[in-house]
């Protein structure tokens, strides 16, 4: 492997080590054990995904450890696998540490063998030896290391054992060891083909190709990503492709099976051979605690009630714990606004003061108020994920998800969607086919995210006495889920047609998640939410403030009005007011007046801004700022039916800017983000049109409702 970049780094006393391994092999635990708290999120050029990076010092050198996504192979099926593969080839780490779960040795070595074939400098961290021993497996590590031609360090990461040796070995090997030189032998017939193809592959030098033998194997396997990597090379690539296709036909005839499957079998053959010589199984221990739990929770009869009870518990806990913290935050921003207002010099830059108070502090405060709910929800989801339960949930939901053309795995992004749509969209990366990813991504905004909640709570509290409140809230969440299901079904049968896709997923053994791991997962997702608050929402608040404050009407026309009337006239004259009035003729049919229409403009920046927009709009007109008085004020201006329509429209229409940007980034095209935004808005209009018009016809909610 040529490593100009890597030797340059090594000379500077800094080496880069990549951590690879199967999901659930203990990679994250090893990463945290190696680097401690010195971590950051790094963006690598050419790699759209964020990789976690941490460092440690050893023998005067800085070792940067990059945590790659957990993958079962490097076949480039899912975006995660592509990221891992491209990082290894393009960034040329000085050492790759492959974390192997010894209790699932053969399956884990499948990835190891692919790393060996890439010719990367490799060190194996054999983790979970304690679990393997408990299952009655005895492993001769030295023998296996000889057979594979790769050094092995034993670790029990969950107890921190072996990490110091691992650090030593990393520091000793990184930047010094070149490739492993280890070769996987494929048997006479395939080797014959590889002997013929390798010279042709030598002529195809491309940045995404680690070595000629690897390319020869990949071309024989019919690997599309490898073919793409050399596509621009012209004749040599075409010659290799032709030859590989010829050999592939010959081999599949010989073996009576497809060439790539024969190759996969040979890889397993190589692994089995090595394992037979080094692993001794004494007793098979059955009925682990994990299996006993599964006996109960995966049974439909018990499983589904347990599942729904857990989900209910998660939401209950989220709001019970988040509520008090939200109040503190609300009080803090109230105090901040007062302090700033008091400290502001009189007669100094009045518009700036208004921008600070109403725009920035009001806008950001409005978002951060429900940060506690989001944090608690993410923490609860991280707990369910890390404990292993989420995979069981996906199994239970597969039956239902299958009916709408998705499979159980899409359920995890959907769960995250209740917190914030942006991390949910990023979580679709675990879905393998493009069809599944796109379908899931396009319907995700219909899952009521945390940002919708302030809108619901404002209108529900203001317009609906008990016992309506819980029902209306429930109905909104259910409506979102039902629309998402319907839309997914429609998309799968009209746009993203095709077979029910592949759904194979590991059920990891249950384990008690560490507070540290939960903290990290929660923080990762919260960070995306906070970044949205810090960037998109601040910017949007400023833009909106400008839209609502300019242009001013001609002074002579408002001269004779009272200050209150003048404010109303100014707002109605502003850009936002004009925009609101412009769409009002259409929006009137779904229950919106120009103020609510104007606030919708703000909701595009971020859903939660709808509330602060309404408060700004009404505060500007009425001089009343607090939420409670806003609710009272709204009661005078709208009917319960209108309130319901406003909530439904906010639920369905136009995903926020951050969501659009995430869809654009993940789908690679603006087209999908725009299509989604337009499509959902049309859907919102149709749904609210039906509700508003039939509500009026039925005379429901046209006057204030009486409490029970």
């Amino acid at each position, binding site marked *: 492997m040529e490593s100009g970049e890597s030797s340059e780094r090594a000379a500077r006393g800094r080496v880069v080590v990549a951590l690879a391994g199967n999901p659930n092999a203990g990679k994250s635990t090893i990463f945290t054990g190696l680097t401690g708290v010195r971590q950051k999120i790094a963006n690598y050029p050419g790699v759209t995904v964020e990789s976690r990076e941490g460092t440690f010092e050893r023998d005067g050198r800085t070792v940067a450890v990059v945590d790659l996504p957990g993958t079962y192979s490097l076949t480039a*099926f899912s975006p995660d696998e592509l990221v891992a593969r491209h990082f290894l080839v393009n960034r040329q780490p000085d050492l790759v540490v492959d974390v192997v779960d010894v209790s699932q040795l053969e399956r884990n070595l499948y990835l190891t063998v692919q790393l060996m074939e890439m010719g990367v400098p490799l060190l194996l961290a054999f983790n979970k030896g304690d679990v393997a021993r408990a299952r009655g497996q005895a492993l001769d590590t030295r023998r296996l290391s000889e057979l594979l031609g790769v050094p092995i360090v034993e670790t029990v990461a969950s107890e921190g054992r072996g990490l110091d040796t691992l650090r030593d070995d990393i520091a000793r090997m990184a930047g010094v060891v070149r490739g492993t030189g280890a070769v996987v032998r494929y048997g006479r017939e395939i080797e014959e083909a590889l002997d013929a193809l390798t010279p042709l592959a030598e002529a195809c030098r491309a940045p995404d190709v680690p070595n000629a033998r690897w390319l020869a194997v990949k071309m024989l396997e019919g690997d599309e990503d490898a073919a793409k990597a050399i596509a621009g090379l012209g004749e040599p690539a075409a010659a290799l492709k032709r030859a590989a296709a010829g050999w592939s036909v010959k081999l599949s005839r010989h073996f009576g099976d497809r060439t*790539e*499957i024969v190759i996969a079998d040979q890889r397993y053959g190589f692994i089995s051979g090595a394992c037979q010589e080094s692993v001794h199984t004494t007793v098979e221990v059955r009925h682990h605690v994990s299996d006993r739990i599964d006996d109960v929770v995966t*049974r439909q009869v018990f499983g589904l009630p347990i599942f729904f009870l857990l989900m209910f518990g998660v939401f209950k806990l989220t709001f019970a714990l988040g509520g008090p913290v939200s109040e503190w935050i609300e009080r803090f921003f109230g105090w901040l606004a007062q302090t700033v207002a008091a400290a502001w010099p009189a007669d100094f830059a009045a518009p700036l003061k208004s921008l600070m108070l109403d725009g920035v502090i009001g806008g950001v405060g409005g978002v951060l108020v429900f940060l506690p709910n989001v944090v608690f929800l993410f923490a609860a989801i991280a707990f369910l994920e890390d404990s292993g339960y989420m995979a069981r949930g996906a199994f239970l939901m597969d039956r239902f998800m299958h009916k709408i053309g998705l499979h159980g795995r899409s359920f995890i992004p959907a769960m995250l969607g209740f917190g914030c749509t942006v991390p949910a969209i990023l979580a679709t990366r675990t879905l*393998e086919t493009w069809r599944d990813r796109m379908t899931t991504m396009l319907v995700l905004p219909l899952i009521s995210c945390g940002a919708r909640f302030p809108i619901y709570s404002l209108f529900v509290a203001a317009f609906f006495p008990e016992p309506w409140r819980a029902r209306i809230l429930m109905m909104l969440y259910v409506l979102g889920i039902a629309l998402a299901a319907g839309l997914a079904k429609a998309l799968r049968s009209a746009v993203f047609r095709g077979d029910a896709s592949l759904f*194979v997923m590991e059920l990891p053994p249950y384990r008690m998640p560490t507070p540290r791991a939960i903290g990290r997962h929660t923080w990762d997702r919260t960070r995306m939410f906070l970044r949205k608050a810090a960037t998109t929402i601040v910017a949007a608040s400023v833009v909106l403030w400008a839209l609502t404050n300019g242009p001013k009407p001609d002074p002579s026309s408002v001269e004779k009005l009272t200050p209150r009337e003048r404010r109303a006239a100014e707002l109605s004259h502003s850009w936002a007011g004009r925009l609101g009035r412009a769409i009002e003729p259409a929006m009137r049919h779904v229950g919106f007046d120009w103020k609510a229409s104007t606030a919708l403009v703000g909701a595009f920046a971020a859903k939660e801004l709808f509330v602060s927009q309404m408060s700004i709009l009404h505060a500007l007109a009425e001089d009343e700022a607090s939420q409670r008085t806003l609710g009272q004020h709204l009661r005078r201006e709208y009917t319960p039916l209108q309130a319901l329509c406003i909530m439904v429209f906010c639920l369905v229409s136009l995903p926020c800017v951050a969501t659009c940007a995430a869809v654009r980034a993940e789908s690679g095209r603006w087209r999908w983000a725009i299509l989604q935004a337009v499509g959902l808005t049309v859907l919102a209009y149709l749904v609210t049109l039906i509700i508003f018009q039939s509500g009026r016809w039925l005379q429901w909610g046209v006057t204030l409702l009486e409490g029970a």
Partner: protein
Amino acid sequence: MSEATNGAARTADVPLAKLGEGHTGAVSAIQGGRNMVLRLAELGIRTGSRLTVVRGKGPMIVSIKGHRLVIGHGMVNRIFVTPDAHARARRH
């Protein structure tokens, strides 16, 4: 080649979906595209693998070499297994 048979299904073979909870069998054939076969292979399921059905008729949970996998609705009818003799005897 979008569809292919990995190994030939024999008459005694049944789709995994029909194996029944608690029964064990050896995979005899996988009917599916390249992606399906390779995806199963990297999780340890290939021709000859022995697996036991833990749960389910739609999506299934199977146990293979001490670890557990969920196999989705669409795939369980495309994986064929030769049921173990004693398992069959117990069934009838």
